[in-house]
């Protein structure tokens, strides 16, 4: 059986890693390489690295940095932020990204999803969808949550899947950084609407939150950031908790040396 995944998210802005609340109020959390090394030891299932300044600043992805850090990541690495063309995707994959995450650009240019899927396979296309609750329900936002798109997440998820997306990274902007739990209604609505894997994001604070997104929300994976940066909880313990509650997670052999790193 395919295992459910626990995926730390690293947000990168300017020269370091940050974490905010509601896509704002950024706090520095460190530098990329040491964090990747710790996550290698903690047996995370995957890592996501998002350059959250690139689109806002009109920059291209920082290929040099990806080339430096990606080969040190011995689990799959998804890279996003500022991607606008097929050529940029090719450069990121060559720099060492395993998958790429696209968000703002594809609302106006959804054909890019198809172009990437055709060239590199749909499995490396993660469409990142940032969502706010509105008076009428839910709405997708682009440019790090700053611009409304007028489209709902279920409709957009179905469109992204149809265009060739391999996975969806679904983030609740309101829950982001709050550690109050995922928006389970949103996670379930989107997971039920598509057949591609949905990674739930935004709001994880406890192991029970992870469990609920996977079991009640139907997500294939859970992304989390604040709970790993700002609390004592580790991805390894998260998976032990999930396994104890009957969620299929990756089995791994952990040496005594690694155990002491907890």
């Amino acid at each position, binding site marked *: 059986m395919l295992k459910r995944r626990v995926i730390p998210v690293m947000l990168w802005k300017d020269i370091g890693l940050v974490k905010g609340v509601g896509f704002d109020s950024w706090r520095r959390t460190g530098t990329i390489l040491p964090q990747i090394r710790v996550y290698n030891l903690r047996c995370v299932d995957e890592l996501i690295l998002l350059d959250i300044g690139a689109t806002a600043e009109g920059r291209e992805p920082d290929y040099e940095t990806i080339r430096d850090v990606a080969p040190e990541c011995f689990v799959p690495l998804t890279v996003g932020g500022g991607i606008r063309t097929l050529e940029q995707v090719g450069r990121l994959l060559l720099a060492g*990204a395993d998958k790429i995450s696209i968000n703002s650009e594809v609302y106006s240019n959804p054909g890019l999803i198809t172009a990437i899927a055709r*060239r590199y396979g749909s499995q490396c296309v993660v469409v990142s969808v940032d969502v706010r609750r509105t008076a009428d329900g839910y709405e997708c936002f682009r440019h790090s949550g700053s611009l409304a798109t007028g489209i709902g997440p279920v409709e957009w998820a179905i469109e992204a899947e149809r265009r060739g997306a*391999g996975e969806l990274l679904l983030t609740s902007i309101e829950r982001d950084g709050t550690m109050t739990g995922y928006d389970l209604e949103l996670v379930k609505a989107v997971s039920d609407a598509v057949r591609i894997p949905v990674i739930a994001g935004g709001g994880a604070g406890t192991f029970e939150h992870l469990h609920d997104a996977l079991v009640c929300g139907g997500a*294939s994976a859970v992304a989390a950031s604040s709970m790993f940066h700002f609390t004592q909880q580790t991805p390894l313990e998260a998976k032990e908790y999930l396994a104890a509650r009957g969620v299929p997670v990756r089995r791994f052999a952990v040496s005594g040396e690694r155990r002491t790193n907890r």
Partner: protein
Amino acid sequence: MKILIIDYGLGNLASVRRAVEECGGDPLVSALPADIARSSHLILPGVGAFADGMSLLRERGWVEPLKAAVRDDRIPLLGICLGMQLLADRGDEGGESDGLGLIPGVVERLRPAGAEERIPHVGWNAVRQVRPDALFTGIPDETDFYFVHSYAVRPADASVVIGMTPHAGGFVSAVRSGSAHGVQFHPEKSVPAGFTLLRNFLAV
């Protein structure tokens, strides 16, 4: 002697190179088929569609040198993910195309076996070792490896199958035929078991 990582314009070469280094090998990422002559082992990585992969291998002159190295000179070759699929006779991702023909069989799109299953098959899944093989030395049966793919090899001859994975009704996740090895998962991204498998391959 070098561990030759074949650069044909597709795939995560830097990760494979770093993993080979971590596993004690001396990697050479090369776009020159002539470098096969100074290599003890060949690794064919790959991310992408079958037809693109084959046309790039053809354009860059790898097809005949690779076949000769594996069939005649018995140099161990490890195909990873798309690299495993390219070992087969034929695939139809991105248009029907002939493969390298080192593993008799075809590449087919996975079909979900139930409502719970999703394609692409992305994530950690178990490899059942259906046949003992040096590639699996020191790796417990049913160990999870990282997969990310929508297609898989269906070999014509069951005797080449060394690993099976329970998704899409069960697909072939590891093969060996002579010195041609293939794994559908990514050992370079499956620390720690994946590194054990790479070390085993370098010891072949």
